[in-house]
Structure formats: C-alpha cells, structure tokens
C-alpha cells in the first residue's frame, strides 16, 4: 500500500514537470510601422534545412568564418577552426575539402583564415583567401594550386612594424584587392594586382568636436590622452554588388548618431549619412547608398524595448556581414540580436528574421550571410552549420514584387504588392509599391491615395506633380487667358462706369 502511494505520488510529481509542446514556428515576425513601432508581420523566411560537415564525412566545421556563393551556385565555406576550405556544388555535393595548398613545390596551410572571395571574370575562376594569422592572402584554384601569395605590402603611411592581418576582402575585375585589415582603421587597403599598395579606400570620416579642439589646446598631452580618443569606425565586412559597387558594413554604431537620425526624413540625406551601418562605395570612395526608407537602415529601432516581438537583447545592431543581390536588395547580419535585416535598393526595410536560440533554424553566433538564389543562408559558428532559409509565400511575394518592378513588369509588381497587403496590412511599403506601379500605369490619382496611406510624401509629391500635369497640362494656357481676360474686362468695366459717372456729374466728384 505504501509503495503504491509512493508510486502515485511520484507519477503526480512527474506531471508537474510536463511542458506543453508548442507546434508554432520558433519565431514571430515583425516589421516597423511609420511611427517606428514594431508591429506583427508574417515570417518572410523560414528554416528549410541545415548543412553540417558530419553529413559529408569530413568532420564538423569548427568556427567557420566566411561563406561565399559563386555564379554557378557553388557554395564555399571557410572552415576557419579546421583551417580548410570546403566547397559544395549547386546540388550541394561535396566538391573539395582543401586544407593543404601547393605553392612552388611547398605545402601551405592556413592559420585561422577569416575572409574569402571568388574572382569570376573573363573565364577565370580564382579563390582568394585572407589567411589572417599567417598575415597573407593566397590565391588558389579549386584543386589547391596556389599561384600567388600576397604578403604585407609596403605602406608608407603607416608604421612599418604594424602587422598585416587581412580579415575580409573583395577583388575587382582588374584584380585589385580591397582588404579589411584588423589593425588598420583608415578604410579598406587597396592593393594592385601585383600586391603593391595602391591607396586607402573609403575611409570612414571622423568628426572632431569643437570642444575637443579646445581641450587639446588647454590640456597637456598626458591629460589629453586620458580623454576617449576619436577613432574612425572600422568596416566589418565588404561585398560587391553586380554593378561593381562595394557595400561595406560597420559593426560599431555611434549611439548618439544612431538616436539622432531617428527623426530624419528621407529627404535629409546628409543627416542620414551620419549614421552608418552600411556604406555603398563608389569608385572614388564616396558613400552613395540611398537611404530613402521611412528610417535609415540601422536594424532594430527600439533598441531598449522589451516587447514580446523583439528579443530581450538590448543595444544597437552590430552588423558583421552584408550580402547584395542583383536587384539591389541587401541583407545584413546583426550579430548582437542574431537577426537578418533585408532592405531594398532604396533602403526600405522589407523583412526581419532570425532569433538567438539553440533550436534548429536559429543561430547564436552567426558569422556570415549570403543570398543563395531566393534563399538566404546564414553561417553559424557556435553550432557550426550552414542554415538555409527559404522564402514563405509572404516573403516570396515581396521579393517578386521588387524584382518585377526592377525588371519593368509593373502590373506583376502591383499584383504582388496587393498579395503582400492581403497577408500583412501593416506592410506600409507595399502601399508605396502599389502606388509606384500605378504611377507607371498612369493612374496618378490612385497612386496619390496609396502614397498617402504609405506616408510617403516624396512619392506623393511626384504623383501629384504628374497628376497636375495630366489634369491641367495643355489647359494651362486657357486658364491663364481666362484669368487675365477676366481681370481686364473688370478693369474696363470700372473705367466705363467712372466715365459715365463723369459724364453725369462732372470732374469734381469723380476724382
């Protein structure tokens, strides 16, 4: 009897620890409305699969640091902890597992490499690896034959003792390299094809406050050195878009500037350029990114809120990777909150996904993000895996709407944006999208209505201008004539009246 009671008690106790199982997706989507408040949205991307090294019999990845997809949809993973490069083809079959490289009869190995770039122009196919701890960049083919090793270049602007730690790089068509170096903060190091130093490129501007100038005059060097120094922000990653512009992400966000840009309008271009999380660098190193969205591309806006929609991590986004597709959409990886933010070419926030967790389809310590067709891949380094996210119906509709607009299929674009709106009426930019298509179709009145809902004064103004041209346009001459004619007739009428009074009453009373 006693044993029975014990058993019963035990089973009751067990019941206490039963956790109900949830079948809901692991994360809830959200988007920011024009008032900068997060509102629920459908998930645009959802976990589809993950790729781990053990599945291919090559052992798990260890702290992989970079991932690139080339034009043939081959996937290159820089498995930094294992000092190797792993290559998969477009069917995700293992193609290469390189940990030894041959160079002029010697064998080279990597030492904690951080960056990877695939050069694919004019029929050439070369892999550049930033072999960070070995202080060099090697250029190899898929078989591990290295044809070039770039070591530290001579740079007359910096101390010759400074070590050379290349972390990320891109290579342009003329084989010039743009390299992020860990301890050089003057922008990207631009090297010629032969490895000689060309210039620093796209240095982030630092501004020095007037107060500091005065302090420098007053203080002794010892005192001044105690003040927090103004160091230019370093780029965290670089990538090329299909037109040859460099997109560079910045991990550190200046908090003051971050908050200062909140109330900027899309037209305040200079003010918005102050907060830089990403730059689009033209050939002369100037920033030409369009920031015409409702808010600048800074990731999460309410950085200290603890709403249920966002994770309870405080602080601004720290963007460690960026990827651009051929339609100008770019996705940025926020390693602070483990999220991917995707923006269109104008800087409108399209969707947010990702969550810091141990579940499948979430990531704790992401290192790289890349577009893979219409999928988005995230490289996770703590539980090393490549995580594949595929677009949901909702995400697919957004992508298609933007692509259709870029390729000139305005009707399709409008249809897709309408579909988006059916799934998420919080999606303000969808109204802008519908409006833009209507402008192209000549329905200016309808477009104005949509832009008003989207709270997009700039486009509203353009649509209004076109509408006025359409409505008045050639009739303007007539309107002008009627107004001027009416005025003249009235003046003549007054004169006549005066004249008749003059005839009736004589000079004195009239004048």
């Amino acid at each position, binding site marked *: 009897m006693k044993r029975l009671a014990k058993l019963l008690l035990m089973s009751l106790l067990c019941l206490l620890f039963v956790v109900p199982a949830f079948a809901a997706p692991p994360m809830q989507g959200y988007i920011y409305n024009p008032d900068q408040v997060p509102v629920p949205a459908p998930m645009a991307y959802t976990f589809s699969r993950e790729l781990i090294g053990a599945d291919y019999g090559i052992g798990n990845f260890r702290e992989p640091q970079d991932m690139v997809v080339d034009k043939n949809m081959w996937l290159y993973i820089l498995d930094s902890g294992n000092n190797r490069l792993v290559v998969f083809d477009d069917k995700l079959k293992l193609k290469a597992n390189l940990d030894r490289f041959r160079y002029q009869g010697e064998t080279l190995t990597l030492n904690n490499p951080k960056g990877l770039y695939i050069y694919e122009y004019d029929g050439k196919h070369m892999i550049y690896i930033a072999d960070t701890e070995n202080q060099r960049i090697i250029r190899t083919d898929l078989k591990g034959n290295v044809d070039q090793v770039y070591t530290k270049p001579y740079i007359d602007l910096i101390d010759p003792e400074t070590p050379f730690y290349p972390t990320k790089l891109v290579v342009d068509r003329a084989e010039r390299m743009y390299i992020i170096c860990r301890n050089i903060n003057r922008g990207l190091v631009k090297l010629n094809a032969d490895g000689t130093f060309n210039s620093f490129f796209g240095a982030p501007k630092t501004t020095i406050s007037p107060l500091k100038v005065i302090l420098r005059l007053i203080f002794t060097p010892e005192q001044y050195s105690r003040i927090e120094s103004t160091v230019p922000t370093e780029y965290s990653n670089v990538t090329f878009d299909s037109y040859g512009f460099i997109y560079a992400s910045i991990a550190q966000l200046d908090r003051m500037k971050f908050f200062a840009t909140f109330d900027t309008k899309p037209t305040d271009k200079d003010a918005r350029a102050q907060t830089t999380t990403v730059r689009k660098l033209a050939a002369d190193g100037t920033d030409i990114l369009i920031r015409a969205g409702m808010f600048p591309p800074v990731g999460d806006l309410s950085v200290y809120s603890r709403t249920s929609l966002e994770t309870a991590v405080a602080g601004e986004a720290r963007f460690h990777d960026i990827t651009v597709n051929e339609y100008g959409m770019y996705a940025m990886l926020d390693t602070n909150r483990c999220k991917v933010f995707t923006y269109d070419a104008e800087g409108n926030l399209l969707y947010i996904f990702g969550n810091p967790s141990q579940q499948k389809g979430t990531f704790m310590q992401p290192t790289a993000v890349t577009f893979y067709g219409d999928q988005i891949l995230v490289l996770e380094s703590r539980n090393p895996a490549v995580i594949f996210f595929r677009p949901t119906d909702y995400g697919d509709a957004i992508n298609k709407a933007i692509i259709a607009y870029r390729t000139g299929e305005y009707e399709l674009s409008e249809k897709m944006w309408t579909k988006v709106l059916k799934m998420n009426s919080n999606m303000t930019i969808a109204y802008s999208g519908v409006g833009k298509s209507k402008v192209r179709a000549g329905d200016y009145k309808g477009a104005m209505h949509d832009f*008003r809902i989207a709270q997009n*004064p700039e486009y509203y*103004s353009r649509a*209004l*201008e076109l509408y006025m041209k359409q409505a008045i346009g050639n009739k303007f001459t007539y309107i002008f004539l009627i107004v001027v004619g009416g005025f003249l007739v009235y003046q003549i009428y007054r004169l006549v009246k005066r004249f008749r009074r003059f005839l009736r009453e004589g000079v004195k009373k009239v004048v």
Partner: protein
Amino acid sequence: MAQILKELKYSLYLIFHPFDGFWDLKHEKRGSRKAATVLLGILVLLSIFRTQFTGYLYNQEYDGVSLNILSEFTTTVGTFLLWCIANWSLTTLMDGEGSFGDIFMVSAYALTPMILIGFPLAFLSNAMPLEYGAFYSLMNGIAVVWSGFLMLSGLLVVHQYTLSKTILTSILIVVGMAVIIFLGLLFFNLISQLIGFFIGLYRELVLRIL
C-alpha cells in the same frame, strides 16, 4: 443683416488702410461687435477647414479622420479670448482708451488677412507638390505678418498709444496670457485636489462611521 454685411465688407477696406480704418471702426461706427463675432466664427471655420482640407504634403501629421471640431473651436476661440482678456487687463492699467468691446472688435478685424489668404491657400495646397513648399510658407508668412501688423496698429489706434508703448504692451500681453494660463492650471489643479479631498472625506465618513 445688410448692416452686418456692410460692416464685414469694411474689413476689406481696413486691411489696406489700417490707421484710418481702425479709427473709423471705433469712432465712426463702421464696424460692430456682431460683425467681429461673425469674423471669429469664420476663423473657427478656417481652422477646421485647414485641418481637414489642407493637402497631405502640408498636413502630414493629420490622418484625415480624427478631426475634433470642438477642440478646434476651443483652441481658436480660447486663444482669441485669452488675447482679448489679457489685452484688456493690461491696457486698463496702462491708460488704454479702448473698452473690452473695442479690443474684441479690433482684434477680430485684424485677423482678416488670415481668412483671406488661409482659405484659398488650404485649397491650393492640394495642388502643390513639395517644390512649392517655399511658396506655401511664404503665403502663410505674409498672412501672419500682415495680421500681426494690423493687430499692432489696431492696438495703437484704439488705445491711443505711441508706437514704442504699443510694442511694449503687446509683449506684456503675451506674458500676461502665459500668466493667465499658469493661474488657470494652478486653480484647476487646486480645485481638483480640493474636490478629491472632499470625496475622500465623504468616503471615510460613509465607510467608517455610518
């Protein structure tokens, strides 16, 4: 009726000849308090009209549906009456000649340019892209400056002040308005605390003693 129309029409003469105009307004009985009240009513209409019908580009904070006529009414009439009361309170002490009725009348007539420019501008703003923003603010500025000038000259004429005294007085009037608002809020706050106290007292009595 015809009388009021005639008095209203006088405002069109007045805005171009302020010194003569205000003198005649008071001494020749060219205007009346009734007409001034009508003008004030038109001002209320204007503020409603502006909120509701100004083009989206120049009215971005307004969502198109949340218009509150009562609050438009109170803000317009309230500010106007506040101005008149502060004006009267100060000018009585400062040897002003105008009565409260005069002040009311002069102030209402002085705001005519706002009406004349405000209505067409609100209407036209629907057809003005952002490039015309400068024109929009220019017209608004003209309306405000013109009305302000009329207000000053009206004050000058109706109280028989010198120019410097007029300017000093109008600054003091604005300060006076602020003081009135402050006193009003203080009074409101104290009263509500007093009422709260008595309600609390009543509850204590009812719950504990009875």
